[in-house]
């Protein structure tokens, strides 16, 4: 049994990154604090993984202010969505291959 490992996206190897991506794919946009609460992540950890996804051009960042508070919204980019779907398909294929 041989599984093509190149289908797995290196960017999603980390669990938190995959979780971030699944939230952003399901929503138009999501802000930092809500992400933090939902995923129960620490500031630093979440920020560094968001940075990594941004570097891959999988997400875009929109910074704005609500009153005086900074508000950072994250949006999944087209390539990010495609990469996410491809990654999920790879996971599903893996299960199918193991069954046969």
């Amino acid at each position, binding site marked *: 049994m041989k599984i093509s490992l190149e289908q797995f996206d290196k960017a999603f190897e980390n669990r938190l990154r995959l979780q971030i991506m699944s939230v952003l794919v399901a929503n138009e946009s999501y802000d930092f604090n809500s992400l933090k609460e939902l995923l129960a992540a620490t500031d630093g950890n979440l920020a560094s993984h968001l940075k990594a996804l941004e570097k891959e051009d999988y997400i875009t960042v929109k910074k704005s202010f609500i009153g005086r508070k900074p508000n950072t919204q994250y949006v999944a980019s087209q390539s990010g969505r495609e990469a996410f779907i491809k990654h*999920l398909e790879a996971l599903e294929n893996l299960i199918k291959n193991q069954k046969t």
Partner: protein
Amino acid sequence: MKEESIYSELSSIRSLMERSSKFISLSGLSGVMAGVYALAGAFFAQRLIQQQEDSAHTGGEYTVHSSIVPQLTLMAIAVLLLSITTCVILTLRQSRKKGEPSWHPGSKRLLTSIALPLITGGIFITILLLRAEYWLIVPACLIFYGLALVSGSHYTFSDVKWLGLFEILLGLTCALLPGSGLLFWVIGFGVLHILYGFIMHFKYKQ
């Protein structure tokens, strides 16, 4: 990677996508309570109308006399406020129990999406009241409430959409049959809510 771990990974992704975009702490029990309030309100309304008809000896089931309209309106507002309060309290309790934040992008979108049809409906019904077009009030309540439910259903359990569609259907039918307002009120706000509440309560094992 083990098969089970991939399965759990996939199902955790699915639940995350759902939890992040939808507000799923809506309490089924609050639907039942809203239905009970509506039935109680309808019962008192029926008695008021009866009394008024007896004393006036004028009749016709097709007319609601303007003298009891303020009382009926107050009753409807009381039912509405009681229902909203119960719903908010039970839902907050539910979300605390589930550990879901009650104020997150999902619930914000839910509120904004139901707000537009509800506020439009509220203003429209106020206009109907002021212009004494009483026969249209119950249909308008049902239709706008149904529209609000359908538009909110994208951000919560999809079952809410069905409740909304039934309310719209009832509202339209009610508009076709003048004089049947109270009956449709009982079905739409009373019976449907109680049914829906029980279904939700057992379906999602709250």
